[in-house]
């Protein structure tokens, strides 16, 4: 998917470069561009790229206005093409065998040992270079991943997902994303309405309280929370551990669980929250777990299972595992460093 997108964008860029190049030069270099245009026309024809083709037309038309010679080029191009069409019709076989060449990056020529190493890491290894810089493909992939990370931070969890999970939504003292990022302290406090709502809606003194927040990655929640939540519910159900009323917090920070623990007097809180996105995955989720989180709980008492996403710990397996972690915490009545100490 990403690969495809990257190659499409590259094609666009290449064509733009091609157009600009032709604009500066005189008549002679039209010939190689002609070839390129031919692929462009074919490109228009393909249904798969219909959307894309529209964009392409739009962008050519904008250049058309500002750039007289280009129109001519484009027009002569199509007429050229028609001509060649006619001449080709004399020879049917040549016509039918005209390949629709889609843009493709050159094949990666990495050695077997690099391929073997690549199996062990999602890092960008063995990508080669162009002079002192990365290759276009690598660069675009990097930009794409960076954009996905930014989108994850500024994205929102959809209403549909919350309905599917059957959870209500509360807010923190944070008003917008900028404030969320610059004022972590506000993300650790519930808004006044939230407190009232939680107190009226939630079961008090639950054994396990599950809470969900987009945190720094809405896409993490969007992609993973359902599977983790269902598997965790099932796991706790098998173990006969009662669960409180799950709810969703918009723009929450990890330590917000302390206030919620205080409010509901929960024994254990499992907090599913979107992790700060990276360039390998923007969809990674964490599950923070704490025994009796209360205002003033220290970080050493919190536990976390991180890296929950399709390419990391499978969401379902993480949910199933969390159930046993909760069981252990309830057994030892401790979490984090305290649990390690009690376990011996």
């Amino acid at each position, binding site marked *: 998917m990403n690969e495809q997108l990257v190659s499409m964008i590259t094609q666009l860029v290449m064509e733009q470069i091609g157009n600009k190049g032709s604009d500066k030069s005189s008549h002679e270099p039209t010939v190689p561009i002609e070839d390129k245009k031919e692929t462009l026309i074919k490109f228009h024809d393909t249904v798969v790229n219909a959307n894309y083709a529209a964009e392409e037309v739009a962008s050519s038309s904008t250049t058309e206005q500002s750039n007289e010679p280009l129109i001519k080029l484009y027009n002569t191009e199509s007429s050229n093409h028609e001509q060649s069409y006619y001449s080709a019709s004399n020879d049917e076989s040549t016509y039918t065998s005209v390949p629709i060449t889609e843009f493709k990056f050159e094949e990666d020529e990495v050695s*077997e*040992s690099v391929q*073997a190493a690549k199996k062990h890491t999602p890092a960008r290894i063995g990508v080669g270079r162009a002079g002192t810089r990365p290759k276009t493909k690598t660069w675009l992939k990097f930009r794409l991943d960076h954009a996905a990370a930014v989108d994850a931070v500024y994205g929102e969890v959809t209403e549909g997902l919350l309905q599917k999970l059957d959870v209500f939504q509360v807010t923190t003292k944070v008003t917008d994303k900028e404030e969320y990022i610059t004022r972590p302290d506000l993300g650790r406090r519930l808004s006044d309405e939230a407190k009232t709502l939680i107190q009226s809606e939630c079961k008090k003194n639950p054994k396990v309280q599950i809470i969900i927040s987009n945190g720094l990655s809405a896409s993490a929640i969007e992609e993973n929370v*359902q*599977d983790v939540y*269902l*598997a965790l519910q*099932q*796991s706790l*159900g*098998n173990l006969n551990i009662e669960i409180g009323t799950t709810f969703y917090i918009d723009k929450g920070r990890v330590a917000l669980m302390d206030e919620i623990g205080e409010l509901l007097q929960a024994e254990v809180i499992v907090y599913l929250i979107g992790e700060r996105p990276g360039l390998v995955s923007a969809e990674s989720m*964490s599950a923070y777990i704490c025994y009796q989180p209360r205002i003033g709980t220290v970080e050493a008492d919190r536990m*976390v*299972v*991180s*890296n929950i996403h*399709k390419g990391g*710990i*499978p969401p*379902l*397996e*993480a*949910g*199933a*595992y969390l*159930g*046993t972690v909760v069981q252990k915490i309830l057994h030892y009545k401790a979490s984090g460093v305290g649990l390690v100490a009690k376990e011996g």
Partner: protein
Amino acid sequence: MKTEKIYSAGIDIGTSTTKMVVSSFLLKNVAGVTHVPRIEIIEKTVLHQSPIIKTPFINKEIIDMEKIEQFIFQQYQLAQISPADISTGAIIITGESATKENASEVVHAISDSAGHFLVATAGPDLEGIIAAKGAGTLQQSKNTAKIIANIDIGGGTANIAVMQFGEVIGTCTLHVGGRLIEFNNGIIQSISPPIMKLMEKWSNPLNVGDSAEDIRVTQIIQELVEIVAKMLSGQLTDEQHPLLLGHLPTWDKPVEAIVFSGGVAACIYEDECTNRQYDDIGEKLAKSLLQHEQLKSFLWLKPEETARATVTGAGTQTTEISGATIQVDAEALPLKNVPVFNCHIDTHSKEFDYAVKTAVAQADALFSIQENRSPFALYFSQLPYLSFRDVHTLCEAILKHLATRSSKEIPIIIVIQSDYAKVIGQTIQAINQTVPIICIDQIKVETGDYIDVGEVLPSGVVPVVVKTLAFHSK
């Protein structure tokens, strides 16, 4: 961080020699604190190496099991370890010993008596792989990125395993060994059947009673070396070759480097031949291998073990540790000799019910004797990404086709390559609370393999030995 120690034994009953090792493994959670645990063996220590004894026989066709057992218990005493402390390991019967009448009985009986969880194994391909692991060749292939062939030459057979990047890419077994012709006082005392077959086309074959110095003995040795060279360079294509045991070489990349292990290899790398108390062609075979022109063109690497490669491999390299998030009914363990059947699930259609149904039917046809349905492990190798709903559908299919036949003795056994065991196990439990289930993951097997699953260790994982149980056919 906490570690856990377990003991392992390895026993190799070969064509001419029998030996044993006792070792200890240190297990540790190697995953970071914020991750789901991953238990791995972080240290292996060989505690005791037995002397190499001659494999005892009652007569030509029957192995003397009692003497072998005596030997094993004596070694346990020397190692100061009780058989009950052995929580993993393998006994392997190799070379021509695997063709003896009571071969199967011997390995199974000894595996039951000589350790709490000791696995019976056999099979020419497995021999080669275990020897390669024991000789350290698998590790070398990981370190060097070269395609390396490990040639384990014992008394009766040469077992070849070819590796690249730490993975076995092919195997082959030949009737090439030190004891194929035995001498006594300078006279040929015995010639093994494959050599007799090889000489069938000769006008003047060797006979028992001929001189050990006969030129034809050298000719035979030349033939043996020749076939090793041909096999390594990919020129062995004659399926009917009298020296080929089983299938033709299965690797499809050119071998770059070679390592010899096994009893004969002791004469290649070390001048230990004088220690070899056997009057046979072993020494000459080693010398001829060293001098062969075609073999010289390969890069020669040194093994960590020669004569003890297979037993070291059996004792220290056969045990795998399952994933840490698994679901097992502790009472149903240990499980021994469970055949594996691969259930293929199509990534796109996700027709779980159909896939499980077909796999169960096929496995029944393959493993069950008449009406006696024997247990087998259903293996899911390439599971696509599963949602919670998918897992439910899959588990319902598994229960539908397997629940009625399961019992305390025969639990539902599921092996998964990717990390899904806990959720699948829990889902099965959520649907049906009474059915016993063994659901483990992060183990790579294939149809035709057998697995043994040991008891749950304190860290929640189980030791698993993947093996074949094919005895050489004569």
